[in-house]
């Protein structure tokens, strides 16, 4: 027995070291491996640890792990890097539901034993797990485009949010006080918890998605920690808390990147753009790929501002080819990465890494803004809200106050875009109508392919 405890302790230390390494670029791979080993150890111990009642049911455990591992590995191998946010949300939802099921099984197993307070903790965990689950499923639907914001309009969502939260939390205290609950009450509690997850995530949309994903991630961590308390396993407690607190840090970082307090993200109903700010009009000027190619070849400094649109068009690899060609012509070429570009924190970095773009070409917000001031041509590939100057000068705009990539001093701005439709957050962009801005309509990948061809002839 003491052997098991020692191994469990070693696993906990490995997990901390792994997570520590995961947060440094050089050691991230090893960190991931160490954390995986730590949890694998934890699982093996959980299977063989001596318990008071040992019904074991090893057949079910083996079956469950086998099926889960196959599904996990296959979906991890198949997923495209653009779909990473959806995948992470879905995995996260599964973790949440698993925690919810743990609570249910505990309730079934302990109908007679267990203190009233235990019941309260278990119900609390059931609530957290189910909220993480239904919230993640809605987030998955939104990110994959299966659910549109207009389908998710819930009347009085803020009021409903608060009422549901009060009812469920109140119920937890009530049943913890009583010490019993009937099957019907449990069923109602399940429904309310699931509903709360939906009401929590549904109204949040558009540009706030990175915040939603990281806060749901954190929530699953917390529910894993509470599950650890219920089943008296310290590795679970530790892992869950680490995930929970790192998720909170990331969430706050994302909020800071958008200059929005967390509460306004949750209750702000950012989803649909309405009101006077869509009144920006003017004539957008167009440019041909051939002209742009010539302009690029004679520039000194070029900067690409990528957004999710680049990923959708699968244009990152061909952008990299343009980079190489311009490199030969001694044109300085950089990428300006906004912290919330894409659908999850750091998404653009992953996509560009997939296309072999090197680290030192990627500029973060501050470096990018000083670079953009002296850039000859900035090419916006599928980004929109992160370059919207309304954030700086229009107090009525929904993104007012969000730090953006500022293109005001850039000599020439070219926007690659499919049409004049507003971006994911549904906000019109005055940048498109500025004097030094030109539009290049069409599929970004095709447009850049033409630019590449023309460049070879310059």
């Amino acid at each position, binding site marked *: 027995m003491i052997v098991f405890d020692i191994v469990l302790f070693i696993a906990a230390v490995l997990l901390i070291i792994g*997570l520590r390494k995961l*947060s440094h*670029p050089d050691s*991230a*791979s090893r960190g*991931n491996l160490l*954390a995986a080993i730590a949890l694998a150890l*934890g*699982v093996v111990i959980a*299977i063989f*640890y001596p*318990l008071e009642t040992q019904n074991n*049911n090893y057949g*079910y*455990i083996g079956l*469950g792990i086998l099926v*889960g*591992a196959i*599904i*996990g*590995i296959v979906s*991890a*191998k198949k*997923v495209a890097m653009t779909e990473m946010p959806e*995948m*992470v949300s879905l*995995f*996260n939802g*599964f*973790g949440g539901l*698993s925690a919810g*099921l743990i609570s*249910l*099984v505990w309730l079934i*197993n302990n109908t007679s034993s267990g*203190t009233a307070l235990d019941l309260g903790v278990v119900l609390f965990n059931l609530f957290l797990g189910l909220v993480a689950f239904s919230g993640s499923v809605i987030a998955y639907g939104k990110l994959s485009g299966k659910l549109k914001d207009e389908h998710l309009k819930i009347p009085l969502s803020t009021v409903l949010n608060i009422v549901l939260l009060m009812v469920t939390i109140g119920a937890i205290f009530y049943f913890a006080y009583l010490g019993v609950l009937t099957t019907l009450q449990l069923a109602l509690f399940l429904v309310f918890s699931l509903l709360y997850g939906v009401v929590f995530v549904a109204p949040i949309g558009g540009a706030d998605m990175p915040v939603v994903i*990281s806060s749901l991630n954190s929530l699953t*961590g917390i*529910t*894993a920690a509470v599950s650890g308390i219920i*089943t008296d*396993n*310290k*590795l*679970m407690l*530790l892992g*869950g808390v*680490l*995930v*929970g*607190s*790192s998720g909170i840090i*990331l969430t706050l970082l994302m909020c800071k990147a958008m200059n929005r307090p967390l509460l306004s993200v949750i209750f702000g109903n950012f989803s649909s753009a309405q009101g006077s700010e869509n009144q920006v009009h003017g004539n957008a000027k167009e440019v041909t790929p051939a002209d742009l190619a010539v302009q690029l070849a004679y520039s000194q400094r070029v900067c690409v501002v990528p957004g999710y649109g680049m990923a959708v068009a699968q244009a990152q690899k061909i952008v990299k080819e343009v980079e190489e060609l311009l490199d030969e012509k001694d044109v300085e070429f950089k990428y300006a990465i906004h912290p919330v570009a894409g659908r*999850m924190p*750091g*998404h653009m*970095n992953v996509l560009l*890494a997939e296309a072999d773009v090197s*680290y030192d070409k*990627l500029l973060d917000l501050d470096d990018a803004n000083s670079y953009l001031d002296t850039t000859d041509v900035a090419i916006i590939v599928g980004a929109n809200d992160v370059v919207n100057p309304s954030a700086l000068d229009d107090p009525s705009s929904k993104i007012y106050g969000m730090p953006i990539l500022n293109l005001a001093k850039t000599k020439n701005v070219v926007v690659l875009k499919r049409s004049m439709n507003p971006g994911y957050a549904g906000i019109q962009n005055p940048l498109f109508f500025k004097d030094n801005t030109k539009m290049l309509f069409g599929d970004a990948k095709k447009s850049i392919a033409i630019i590449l061809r023309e460049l070879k002839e310059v």
Partner: protein
Amino acid sequence: MNSIITFIEQNMEIIYLLTFAIFLGFEVISKIPTVLHTPLMSGSNAISGVVLIGAILLIRVTEPTNYLALILATLGIILGTINLVGGFAVTGRMLEMFNKKKNKKK
């Protein structure tokens, strides 16, 4: 009120651990470079697959004839494993892309 005090008494060790782990989490993760936001998120997401351990511990004490509990727990094991294994595999895939590039430079 009494039951709350007994609960605290019984779980003092857990409360210590919980408090230290929260600080540890903040400390370990602070100052992450932007490049690693996505891998860190999917990595930490994988770690929340530890719930699998809880599902295993509970199914081991479940009566072999309690089929409802067995089915629910097995489902919990499946979902937890997907979260754990899938999460680490996806994170590994992402980090490999970062490494591939670094090796080229050398």
